[in-house]
């Protein structure tokens, strides 16, 4: 445990000195503030913020995770020759780099929400958007780690897969489901749609936001089916449970790969 905090602290120190995590936080601060000033406040602003968040956090998180693996190759190898076990090192590195990124988003977005009073007016929705952004950061940094470890010697492939996964999950997914529904409209597709939604963390987060704001018009097909199937409360519950699974599985796969890998 002492060792773990030692590694995490060291990562924090070097990251904060690298400054671009701070820049990332500032971007969200500026964005949220601008949205609040021009959007008039209220739920619309939180919705716009969550749209930006759903698009960018996955991309930034994955790129960040994979870049870390590629950039600190020799350093990680040096650390592995020290008398520590791989599991501790893995958790130390993962927590050390994912938590500052998460903190940057949460702090950057919550400060303007605080001084414009939204945090007081609509606390549950604000906290939900912030928390979802945090969880998505953790999930996609872990995915970046997995991709970096899996394509350790082939950076082009690693980055290629990162972009493809992001495009697929953030942009194409809903369209593909819609197309499937259009093509197979004669069959009962409810279960298929529910299942498909579970397989995409970004979709899950999006549906949670929509359920919280109760905006059916923006819900999209998957969201509407989700609500009809589960209802709002159970829907939120199921979606957050699935997000927890999404957090656990990539981090666990990353650990497995890290433990068995030849460096």
């Amino acid at each position, binding site marked *: 445990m002492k060792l773990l905090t030692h590694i995490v602290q*060291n990562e924090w120190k070097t990251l904060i000195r690298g400054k671009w995590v701070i820049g990332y936080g500032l971007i969200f601060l500026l964005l949220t503030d601008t949205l609040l000033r021009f959007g008039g406040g209220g739920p619309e602003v939180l919705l716009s913020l969550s749209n930006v968040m759903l698009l960018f956090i996955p991309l930034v998180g994955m790129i960040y995770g994979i870049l870390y693996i590629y950039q600190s190759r020799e350093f990680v190898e*040096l650390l592995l*020759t020290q008398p520590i076990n791989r599991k501790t090192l893995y958790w130390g590195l993962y927590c050390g780099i994912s938590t500052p990124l998460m903190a940057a988003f949460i702090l950057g977005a919550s400060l303007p929400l605080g001084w414009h009073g939204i945090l007081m007016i609509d606390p549950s929705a604000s906290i939900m958007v912030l928390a979802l952004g945090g969880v998505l950061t953790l999930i996609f940094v872990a995915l970046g780690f997995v991709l970096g470890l899996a394509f350790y010697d082939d950076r082009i492939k690693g980055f290629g897969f990162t972009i493809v996964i992001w495009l697929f999950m953030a942009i194409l997914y809903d369209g593909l489901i819609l197309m499937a529904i259009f093509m197979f409209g004669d069959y009962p597709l409810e279960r298929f749609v529910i299942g498909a939604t579970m397989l995409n963390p970004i979709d899950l987060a999006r549906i949670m936001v929509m359920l919280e704001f109760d905006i059916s018009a923006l819900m999209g097909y998957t969201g509407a089916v989700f609500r009809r199937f589960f209802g709002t409360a159970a829907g939120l519950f199921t979606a957050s449970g699935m997000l927890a699974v999404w957090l656990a599985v990539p981090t666990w796969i990353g650990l497995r790969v890290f433990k068995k890998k030849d*460096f």
Partner: protein
Amino acid sequence: MIQIEQLVKSFGNNKVLKGMDLEIPSGQATGIVGPNGSGKTTLIKSILGLVRPDSGTIRVNDVKLNGTWLYRQNIGYMPQVARYPENMKVFELFDFIKGLRDQEPVFERELIEQFQLGPELEKSLRVLSGGNRQKVGATLAMMFDPAILFFDEPTAGLDPRSSFKFKERVKEEKRRGKTVVITSHIMSELEQLVDYVIFILDGKIRYYGSMENLLEENKEQRLEGAIARMMEKSES
């Protein structure tokens, strides 16, 4: 003491180590030579636990390696390529490794003085020259006074003066009874530093014995000639 039995490792279709048997007793200074891609680095990485062998066993001081890690308390390793986090400072790196190893450094000051790293301590690792980074690596390897030392191409980026100091230091470690393992392409350097030679070719050990014996067998005065002769012999 390092004991290796029937060590086999391949990366994909590429068989790098093809069944190696090796025993390096404590206190021996050994040089590993062989052409590029012969498996030198993979051998060292296997002993360090960076690479998991496909089959065969490795024992370090009678501890069998199988995802174990405590045995590395007795090992110092200086890598071929030294790259560290860019905006970390030299003294911070030392502090970090101290905390990781949970050991008190024995020779920290002495080594910093020997390698003239004093003025570099406050600099961040990004602005350090390649040679100075190598020296940082050497300091990290030796400062905890481990019983086994690995150097992978240690003097490749060092200026003559630093290289001389480094060799003096290694000789000192030898005198103090350390097990020293060095890989290098510079034969004259190995002649100065080691007493035993392991010649690896194509994933197998072709020669393992004392330096004198090797020279005698091949009727050569210098290690370079002897190794060249052995390579020619194995080709024909």
